[in-house]
């Protein structure tokens, strides 16, 4: 009986250590990839490539994400793939940043969006980490929201309705905020079993999309005065 108790205590300690290690590794890599991505975005703004580069970088990054990362996630080369994905997405952000920086108070819009993204990410991560609530029930809801938003985006490429574009950005900001809660909770409740490279990319995508959506919303409301 006593040995069973000792075994369960040891297992529980192992689980806590594994979870803490997963959280530490994920946040360390996430901060490095965000820094690298910001440098790549700065290079892209300086080079001023054509808008088509955003699409090409997104295709390249998602190709790596879907076809290469799952095969390399458990090896050292997976780290290079993560930096490849985040570097491409950072570089692809260049034309969007250039467009927003050209607004009358563009630098303020971009910096406010970046600051707000940081505040929202820290607040939601802190909430999920400290309360340790399980948000796994949100998965289906968030995925439905994401699918609806993508369908609306496809429609608005041809319809070009400004208010719909703004509504889509608002919806994406909410869905990405939900995904930050969902992913952080997944990390806390995974007993350290999740792969930190996959968790990093997942959180990175939420942060990037949240930033772009906020920049669009703030640009629409504040860019004209």
């Amino acid at each position, binding site marked *: 009986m006593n040995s069973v108790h000792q075994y369960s205590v040891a297992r529980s300690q192992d689980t806590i250590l594994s979870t803490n290690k997963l959280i530490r590794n994920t946040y360390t890599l996430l901060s490095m990839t965000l820094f690298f991505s910001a440098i790549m975005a700065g290079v892209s703004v300086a080079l001023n490539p054509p*808008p*088509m580069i955003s*699409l090409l970088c*997104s*295709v390249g990054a*998602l190709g790596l994400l*879907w076809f290469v990362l799952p095969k390399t996630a458990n090896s050292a080369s997976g780290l290079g793939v993560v930096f490849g994905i985040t570097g491409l997405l950072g570089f692809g952000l260049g034309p969007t940043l250039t467009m927003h920086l050209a607004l009358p*108070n563009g630098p*303020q*819009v971009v910096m*406010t969006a970046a600051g*707000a993204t940081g*505040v*929202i990410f820290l*607040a*939601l991560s802190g*909430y999920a980490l400290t*309360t340790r*609530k*399980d*948000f*796994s*029930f*949100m*998965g*289906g*809801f*968030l*995925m*439905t929201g*994401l*699918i609806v938003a*993508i*369908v609306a*985006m*496809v429609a608005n*490429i*041809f319809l070009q309705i400004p208010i719909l574009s703004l509504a889509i950005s*608002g919806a994406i*900001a*909410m869905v990405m*905020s*939900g995904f930050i*809660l969902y992913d952080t909770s997944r990390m806390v409740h995974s007993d350290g079993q999740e792969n930190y490279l996959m968790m990093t990319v997942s959180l990175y995508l939420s942060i990037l999309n949240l930033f772009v959506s*906020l920049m669009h*919303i*703030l640009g629409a*409301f*504040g860019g004209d005065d």
Partner: protein
Amino acid sequence: MMMHILSALFLVALLVVLWPRAMQMIKHSPKGSGKDWMDALLPLGLIVLFIIFLTTIV
């Protein structure tokens, strides 16, 4: 126009790849109680208010 068509094709490809995972998540997500949803919607509601506040100061 070419850029629009390519962007739309990219988003459709994104939908095609996301669809199986989305279906799996929709079917197999655990059900949340009313309190669970309140715990999730409260911080998201605060974020909506925060974004509205930001639009007034930019």
